[in-house]
């Protein structure tokens, strides 16, 4: 059992995920946490008590702190840390020691995550403060100059710098609200993982020379796990929510463990490679942050665990001889005894159920014998035995007694789409008269909560499992099919795997019978140096069609999006030079982007330039840009008005107070009356402002999302180029060139 090396009870609550340890004077560590009321507190245990001897100092920001980090951003400060504070519209780098701003930047997209460090292929290796906001990523250097800008699919939930591809330079790992985890190497996206839920935390594991692990992640649905590059090593799921992650070698074996803090106050250390629990402790409240720092300033790093109520404990790595004994508690023997007892209980229940089943089968068998003389009925027994009960062999009888199904029973499966219900079905059927009593499907990202249970009230030999995945992903379904005979409670479990094609939600219109309305207006055209058959293979693999056999010089495949009945047409033809010309026709840019990326990954295309024409989306985008301008103007006006009223408000408060001192009661009443009216007005103004702000955020996010969508229509340098060019165009307010960029990828 590991005991904390120190324990503090701070009086202020700590907002989850917003705590950091910084050495603001370059020497002494201070714990800095965001707390209620737009404040940050700094606990400095080592500071020589000043005139007042208080160890906790408050920093006042007057607005909600959304992200917090400490970092020695400027090498000129000689190891002194700066405090980076993100709010809904700004990023402030603050020098705590000198009480001065380092820089204060507007970040209209908001700051939802901050990371700090060197990013590969950016800013010449200088340290950057990386900010993740609404669909956007920004990097500022020590002078507050923007050196990095990129877009992600959605609001950034967590970020960490991590050497994913082991090239000695850090990539930026970004988890966003669309459940994606992306790796950015400079401007380029070098990897993308789709997870099952919103990530709440990421932590770098690659630091201590463990080449086989990259980073750990935690999801809102209770999952934590570890990735190596895009390959998942392990994951565990629990009913609590993981809040924070860190990596620290708590058992002293030289390799870092994944430390996780949970909403129920549990702190857990798991082996990074395998995932087994190494150490566990419990706090009375939900955890809020885990920080690796030398907080006692004795040269040894600890893991500092903070809970939401302000309790802070530090754990020092165990001595090597303690390894493997961290989990042992004093009551270990009793616990083991209790668990053995429980196991015994479970076995007893199992035995009982077997016995009662035998009995009921016996009864059924006897009834069937007594029914033997009667005419054959469409009944349970006859179906199973395949003939009259008269020629029932002993074997069959035994089978029946045990509720056993025929040994040649097989489950076949295929998928079909249903346009009316806007979903797809996985159809399972047995090859004989056994019935499917229930199906348990487990598939990440396909179902909410990852698993699905179908239990038909009237079991038959086929069973349809409906599903409608939220996003396109090629998922492996693990099925447990419970097959039984009709009158028996005993079921046999068939375990099956089913690989869903990635674009399962697109119904293939093979015969042209499906009703496809007008041809889609949008199109994407590109030329790829590939053979047509490879494209056909890709279509087959991702849509579940069969084009590969019949590929000629040209190809046209029509699909319907099951979710919204939009048509999608893929056509391709050979060009004289031996490459292929591919045209995607669809009204949905997102979909085409996904497909282009998937295609490029499948056939190994490194570079892909394309010409996009999506009139509907572009028209919408034009509206969005206009509205952004409008909202910005309104925001300016509202801000000025509010500030003006606030000034008057202040004067009124003082005037009322003056009147009170002068005993001028009627004057005081007048002042307070005005104050009341003005206050009400201000509240109304505030609502207006809040609405305007949230609208503006949505619009800005739409702008970023559009850039992301357009970028996804290209691969390689074209993709990277378009993002930075779009940023430049938006900064210069050059709408014309922006649209040209979005269409052709070139200015």
């Amino acid at each position, binding site marked *: 059992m590991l005991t904390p090396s120190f324990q503090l009870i701070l009086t202020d609550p700590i907002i989850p995920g917003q705590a950091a340890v910084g050495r603001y004077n370059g020497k002494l560590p201070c714990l800095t946490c965001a707390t209620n009321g737009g404040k940050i507190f700094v606990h400095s245990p080592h500071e020589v008590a*000043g*005139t*007042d001897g*208080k160890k906790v*100092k*408050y*920093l*006042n*920001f*007057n607005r909600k702190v959304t992200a917090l980090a400490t970092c020695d951003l400027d090498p000129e400060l000689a190891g002194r840390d700066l405090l980076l504070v993100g709010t809904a519209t*700004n990023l402030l780098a*603050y*020098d*705590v*020691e*000198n*009480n*001065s*701003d380092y820089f*204060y930047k*507007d970040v209209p997209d908001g700051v939802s995550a901050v990371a700090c460090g060197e990013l590969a292929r950016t800013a010449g290796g200088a340290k950057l403060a990386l900010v993740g906001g609404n669909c956007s990523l920004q990097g500022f250097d020590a002078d507050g100059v923007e050196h990095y800008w990129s877009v992600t699919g959605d609001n950034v939930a967590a970020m960490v710098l991590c050497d994913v591809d082991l090239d000695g330079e850090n990539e930026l790992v970004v988890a966003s609200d669309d459940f994606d985890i992306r790796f950015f190497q400079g401007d380029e996206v070098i990897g993308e993982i789709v997870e099952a839920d919103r990530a709440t935390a990421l932590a770098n594991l690659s630091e201590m020379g463990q080449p086989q692990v990259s980073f750990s992640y935690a999801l809102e649905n209770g999952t934590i796990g570890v990735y190596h590059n895009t390959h998942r090593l392990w994951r565990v799921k629990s009913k609590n929510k993981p809040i924070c992650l860190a990596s620290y070698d708590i058992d002293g074996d030289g390799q870092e463990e994944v430390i996780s803090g949970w909403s129920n106050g549990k702190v857990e250390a798991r082996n990074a490679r395998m995932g087994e629990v190494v150490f566990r402790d419990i706090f009375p409240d939900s955890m809020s942050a885990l920080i690796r720092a030398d907080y006692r300033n004795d040269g040894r790093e600890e893991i500092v665990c903070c809970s939401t109520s302000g309790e802070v404990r530090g754990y020092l790595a165990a001595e090597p001889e303690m390894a493997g004994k961290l989990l042992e508690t004093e009551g270990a023997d009793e616990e083991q005894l209790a668990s053995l007892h429980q196991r015994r209980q479970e076995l007893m229940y199992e035995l009982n159920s077997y016995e009662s089943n035998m009995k009921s089968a016996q009864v059924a068998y006897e009834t069937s014998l007594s029914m033997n003389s009667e005419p054959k009925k469409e009944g349970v027994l006859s179906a199973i035995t395949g003939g009259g009960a008269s020629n029932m062999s002993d074997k069959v009888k035994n089978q029946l007694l045990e509720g056993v199904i025929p040994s040649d029973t097989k489950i076949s499966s295929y998928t079909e789409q249903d346009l009316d219900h806007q979903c797809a079905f996985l159809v399972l059927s047995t090859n004989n008269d056994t019935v499917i009593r229930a199906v348990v499907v487990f598939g990440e990202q396909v179902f909410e909560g990852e698993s699905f249970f179908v239990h038909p009230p009237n079991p038959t030999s086929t069973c349809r499992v409906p599903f409608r995945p939220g996003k396109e992903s090629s998922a492996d379904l693990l099925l447990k099919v419970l097959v039984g005979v009709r009158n028996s409670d005993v079921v046999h479990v068939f375990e099956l795997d089913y690989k869903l094609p990635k674009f399962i939600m697109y119904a293939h219109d093979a015969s042209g019978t499906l009703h496809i309305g007008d041809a889609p207006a949008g199109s994407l055209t590109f030329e790829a140096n590939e053979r047509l058959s490879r494209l056909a293979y890709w279509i087959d693999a991702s849509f579940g069609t069969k084009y590969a056999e019949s590929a000629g010089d040209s190809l046209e495949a029509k699909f319907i999006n099951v979710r919204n009945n939009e048509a999608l047409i893929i056509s391709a033809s050979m060009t004289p030079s031996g490459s292929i010309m591919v045209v995607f026709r669809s009204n949905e840019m997102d979909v085409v982007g996904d497909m282009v990326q998937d295609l490029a990954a499948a056939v190994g295309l490194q570079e892909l330039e394309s010409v996009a024409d999506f009139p509907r989306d572009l028209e919408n985008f034009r509206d969005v840009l206009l509205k952004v301008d409008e909202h910005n*103007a309104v925001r*300016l*006006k509202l*801000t*000025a*008005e509010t*500030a*003006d009223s*606030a*000034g008057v408000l*202040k*004067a009124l*408060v*003082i*005037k009322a*107070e*003056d009147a009170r001192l002068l005993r001028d009661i009627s004057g005081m009443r007048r002042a307070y009356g005005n104050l009341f009216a003005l206050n009400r007005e201000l509240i109304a103004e505030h609502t207006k402002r809040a609405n305007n702000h949230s609208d503006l955020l949505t619009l800005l996010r739409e702008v970023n999302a559009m850039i992301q969508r357009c970028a996804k229509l290209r691969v390689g340098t074209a993709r990277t180029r378009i993002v930075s060019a779009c940023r430049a165009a938006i900064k210069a307010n050059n709408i014309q060139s922006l649209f040209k960029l979005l269409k052709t990828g070139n200015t």
Partner: protein
Amino acid sequence: MVLVPDGLDKVWRAQRLLLRQRYDECIEICSALLDKNPYDQAVWYLKCRALTMKNYLDDTEIEDEGVAEVLLDDNAIAKLPRPGTSLARPLTGAKSGGASQGVRPVSSSGRPLTGFARPGTMTRPGTQSTDVRGAFAGNRPGTSRPVTGSDRFVRLGTASMLSEPGGPFIAVEKLDLRKYAARPALARVLCDYVIYHDHNPKKSLELCAIATQLAEYKDWWWKARLGKSYYQLGLLREAERQFQSALKNSDMVSVTLELCKCYVRLDQPNTCLDAYARAGTNHPDEPQLELGKARIHDAVNDMAQSVTCYKRVLSIDSSNVEAIACLGAHHFYTDQPEVALRFFRRLLQMGVSSTELWNNVGLSCFYASQYDMCLSCMEKALALANDENMADAWFNIGTIGIGIGDLGLAYQSLKIAVSIEAKHAESFNNLGVLELRKGNVDQARANFQTAASLVPHLFEPFFNGALLAFKLGDFQESFELCTKSLDAYEDHSDSHELLKQLKQHFSTC
């Protein structure tokens, strides 16, 4: 009525009058012209300019925080910053590099008296002492009260309408600002008019925003005015951003000064100094920048630094009143009254003549042993004095009286001082000492108590009271007063000594 001779172009006349700063006459001519032709842009321009100049305030200098701002605004980030990094927590003791509190008296905000009374810095209380009572009391107890809001910038709609028959010259609320913003020359005049005459930052903000946009975000002037509007509205962060952006377009001293005003309001003296230093590389011989630096160093009580800055100011601009006065005060309190006298004489030569200056000259003469001069100086001071500073003059005469051993004169002068200003704590304190010498113990005690209750930042009444109580055997009261004395001046060795004795006494009996 201004007469314009026949054959003289009235517009030209108005233009000359504007140049000669005879605004009222200029306005009169323009009004008459505009009555005839309201669409004459040149005349409109002249009148607008004249009205603006009439109401113009150099707002890079004036920094007045009203009670409302002090009490209700919370712009500072750090609640309890390290001493010396915040205007609310100046350096104390030996770190400041100046004279100790025992020699140099402190103002109500706990920092030494500077040689120059400037707006803002004197009234602004430290955050830890921000209470309603403290904010309402002025820098001199009892005599004044700070303005309610930033009253200089508050719109006085009725007043401006009264001053102009037939309603205001420009009804800004009704103007189509977009139209005006497109005409660069008129827009600038209008903008200044709105800021300085109408004091309507909301409208000027709107105008500036449109104009900045039309100038493709490249015009520093509009950005600076935008920043000024934000600043007047109290949106400091936005103002800061505009000023910085303006500085990027064109490095102007005035913009730097305004930017630094933002940092002062945000209570970030170090950032402020950085900004001054950055501007200083491009404008090495700009006295305003050096002066700004000196003021900041002064405000955080970094005497050594501020004196260096004041000296630099003087080497650039040898007739800078503020620098001369501050250096004079510095030398006076660092026990060099002769040097101080030279500085004050320089001020006199420059034509400055006020009670305060004569007070200083008189005291410097006294400490420089030029006794023949000092009383005549004090006479001059009294001759110039008004109700606000007469008590100070009498107090100084009292001090001189004590110095030359003329206790009768001292007693009389101090009595006059408190009769003029019933809240002159320093006089009460000295009176108390004199009463004690006369053997009027109860009188003395009452005087100390009055002084202490009037100005809690002076340590002398507390210590005197403590000493008296100790001698009278009232140890409990002595202990309490002694602690208070140490609160006001933590390094006071006599108080420490007394406290030690008291503790010893308490532990033995």
